[in-house]
């Protein structure tokens, strides 16, 4: 039995189709990244997996039952994308409540409060007021609440958004500890590097559809991570979009922008062709990368509004 099974799931908000027919199966014990730009439908997919929203069509099964049942049994731990901590309680009181709530329904053992604080790297924050923490600290507290019941499935919606590098590193160390204990982890991100570094499998979604699905190596071969740009050559007979690594390109009167999966090879080929003028190599924004992947019009505005509405 898979940890998560989605079949033909759709969800619209008004006229906007946020999720447009997604089929997805997540095997147990794996760490999977849901990668996509803002407004791709990641948060909506996750909210249906958690039973917060019902799909318009299709079925969502989590750990062999409905999402609601899995939540009530304490088998899903979730960290929604947004959310702050409540005032009036200390970190120990807050996490302690969540831990006891899980202990009251759990069939197996749940970690002790001290273990939990240790895993989430918040032992030193136990006595602090929950609403007086930095962003990174608060995010680790939220993570502790997500894994308090030793869940079989951990769902993290953009866990590292708006965190500095040190906070990211600490949070991922905590997430890895739980993954190593056998939990299935699903996290969403819009950083290809993060998906690449942490996930066994990457599911790329854009405009409510799965546009690519595979291992990190397979995805990186398809998703251009860099943009190489040079001044437009005077002779137009050179077809730069055919250079090695180039997935797609944009040309205007002054510049040629090549979206590439292998910037080294592309630059070497440009040099060999004598086309290096004002060379610039930059990380491609994921939006650009997905446009090239889906070969579609740049019409991302509507889905972004839909996801904003969800928040």
């Amino acid at each position, binding site marked *: 039995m898979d940890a998560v099974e989605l079949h033909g799931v759709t969800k619209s908000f008004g006229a906007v189709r946020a999720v447009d027919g997604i089929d997805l199966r997540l095997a147990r014990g794996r760490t999977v990244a849901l990668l996509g730009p803002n407004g791709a439908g990641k948060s909506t997919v996750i909210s249906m997996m958690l039973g917060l929203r019902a799909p318009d069509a299709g079925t969502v099964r989590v750990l062999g039952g409905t999402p609601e049942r899995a939540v009530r049994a304490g088998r899903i*731990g979730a960290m929604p994308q947004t959310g702050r901590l409540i005032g*009036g309680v200390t970190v120990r009181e807050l996490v302690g*409540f969540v831990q006891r709530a899980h202990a009251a329904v759990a069939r197996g053992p749940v970690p002790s409060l001290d273990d939990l604080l240790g895993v989430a790297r918040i032992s030193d924050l136990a006595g602090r007021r929950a609403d007086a923490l930095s962003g990174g600290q608060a995010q680790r507290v939220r993570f502790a609440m997500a894994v308090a019941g030793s869940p079989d499935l951990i769902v993290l919606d953009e866990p590292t958004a708006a965190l500095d590098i040190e906070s990211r590193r600490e949070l991922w160390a905590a997430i890895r500890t739980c993954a190593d204990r056998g939990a299935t982890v699903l996290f969403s991100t819009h950083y290809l590097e993060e998906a690449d570094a942490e996930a066994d499998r990457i599911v790329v979604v854009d405009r409510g559809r799965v546009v690519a699905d595979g291992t990190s190596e397979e995805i990186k071969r398809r998703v251009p991570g860099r943009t190489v740009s040079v001044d437009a050559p005077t002779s137009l007979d050179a077809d730069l979009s055919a250079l090695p690594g180039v997935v797609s390109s944009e040309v205007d009167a002054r510049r040629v922008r090549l979206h590439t999966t292998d910037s080294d090879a592309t630059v070497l080929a440009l040099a060999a062709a004598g086309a290096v003028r004002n060379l610039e190599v930059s990380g491609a924004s994921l939006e650009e990368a997905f446009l090239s992947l889906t070969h579609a019009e740049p019409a991302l505005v509507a889905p972004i509004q839909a996801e904003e509405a969800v928040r």
Partner: protein
Amino acid sequence: MILFHYVRLEMLRLLRDPGYLIMTLVSPLTMYLVFTNLDLGTGKGADGAVYSMVGMAGFGAIGAVMTNGVSIAEDKPLGWIRQLRLLPLGPSQAVIGRAVCAMVAALPPIVAVCAAGGLVDGVALSPGRWVAVFLLLWLGIAPLAVLGVGFGYLLTAQKAQMAALVFYMGLSMLGGLWFPIGKMPSWLADVARITPVNRYGELSWNVAGGHAPTLVGVGVLSAWAVAFTVFSVVGYRRAAQAL
């Protein structure tokens, strides 16, 4: 068990906000002392004092449970309701837990007004009746506590504040907590008799006067309790969907 843990957490938050608890008893206590000492038509002598004592204690209790909804509305933008929804805590448990906290917040005005009635205005009841009046004032507020919780889930803090005020003042007056519904036009008194507030006050007025609560009164109050519970559970589910 999980409900106990939840109530304990929310109680911690409530007790660390003493300003709110003090505010809940100032206005009913003041009004009670003014009403009974100026005799604004609530009846003369001991009967009037008992009537006003129950009325103002109930008025204070309604204020406390309605205002409690505002703090729930303030939790929503934090994502706290959704966080709870992702725990093994069921929607009805969440609603009940929060309503129990609201009922605890209703204790200070009930205790303060009853104490003023006994100590200042010489309300004399047998010990058994004192206990019964006190318990009915406290337990009878449960349906309205659930309603206040529902407002908190469904409305923004600002709108919950307005709804709280409208229900607090409006229902208290219509329900006959300020002056007896016998002094109202008969059509208005008929309306008053189907409000939960009037039936809530009636429980204690009857017991203080040596009568048992009426079956109809308990029935009306129970029907409102069911309706308000459904309302609040739906509100909780909606509050958990978005932030």
